[in-house]
């Protein structure tokens, strides 16, 4: 019986790539735009869908969950916490916060390894 070796999961989740992908997606969708009630649904949906599509193109054996919260900029308080039960060697997360003059955007990516 040969030893079963998983080269890609040995490296673990590559947070650098994920954060670059997410940042580019947000820049592309929200860059230069002001908060607009009519478009906001479309923007959040496209940020999330594009990030997911690019993450899948990386070709790694991972399940992804991408969450995006866009808030209009005003004096308000916002707390978010996550607690995860997973395999710390192969799974990971990345959170990117993006802001401009009229809105704040927080995108969370969770990647769970699929053990093949």
């Amino acid at each position, binding site marked *: 019986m040969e030893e*079963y*070796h998983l080269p890609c999961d*040995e490296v*673990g*989740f590559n*947070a*650098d790539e994920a*954060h670059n992908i997410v*940042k580019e997606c*947000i*820049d592309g969708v929200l*860059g*230069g735009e002001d*908060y607009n*009630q009519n478009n906001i*649904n479309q923007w*959040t*949906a496209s*940020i*999330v869908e594009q990030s*997911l599509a690019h993450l899948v193109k990386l070709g790694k054996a991972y*399940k*992804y*969950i*991408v*969450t*995006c*919260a*866009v*808030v*209009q*900029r005003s004096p*308000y*308080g*916002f*707390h*978010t*916490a*996550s*607690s*995860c*039960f*997973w*395999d*710390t*060697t192969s*799974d990971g*997360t*990345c*959170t*990117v*916060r*993006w*802001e*401009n*003059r009229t809105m704040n955007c927080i995108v969370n990516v*969770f990647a*769970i390894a*699929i*053990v093949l």
Partner: protein
Amino acid sequence: MEKRGRGAKAPAVQAPQQPSVMPRKERRPSMFEKEAYAQILRDRLRESIHDVQYVEPPFDDSIADLGKEWKSALAKLKFANSYRMEPLKKFQAHSVETKVQQILTETLQDFKYDDKVFSHLSLELADRILSSVKEFGYHRYKFIIKVLFIQKTGQAINIASRWIWDVAWDSWVSAKHEAETYVALVLVFALYCE
């Protein structure tokens, strides 16, 4: 008739002159010129900043390495095949939802919005919900709990999530608690680990 003819002609002569008299508007540089593209991008993003809030495994990798040594040592042990393709107990969203909603309303019954309290309350609540979901006893499932507190000050907020997972066994639950000054939202994701 002649007069009318002349009258009609005069504006025709004037019209072509007008655009040359008006000052020409500067055209935006084309996207295809290399430097102009960078300039356009910089203009669009001039007012925006971004940073990476939290990453796990941490970028410096020192803690993650410990786990990997242990794991590669474990790989040398050979586990017998269990031949199990599906979980013993499938994740039941409705029972988890009632439990999570109950914890949420109990914890947040009388709380008023307060910055300092809420920042560690959110972590505490996330840990509590995680341990209660684990108690349900869904074997081989990995869980992700997200807790969001949003202060009600008249601003708008939009939250969206998408995922790629195995539709047969993976699922999610959401619970909301609304108070006078804030809204609390909890998202629980359950993923089957094969």
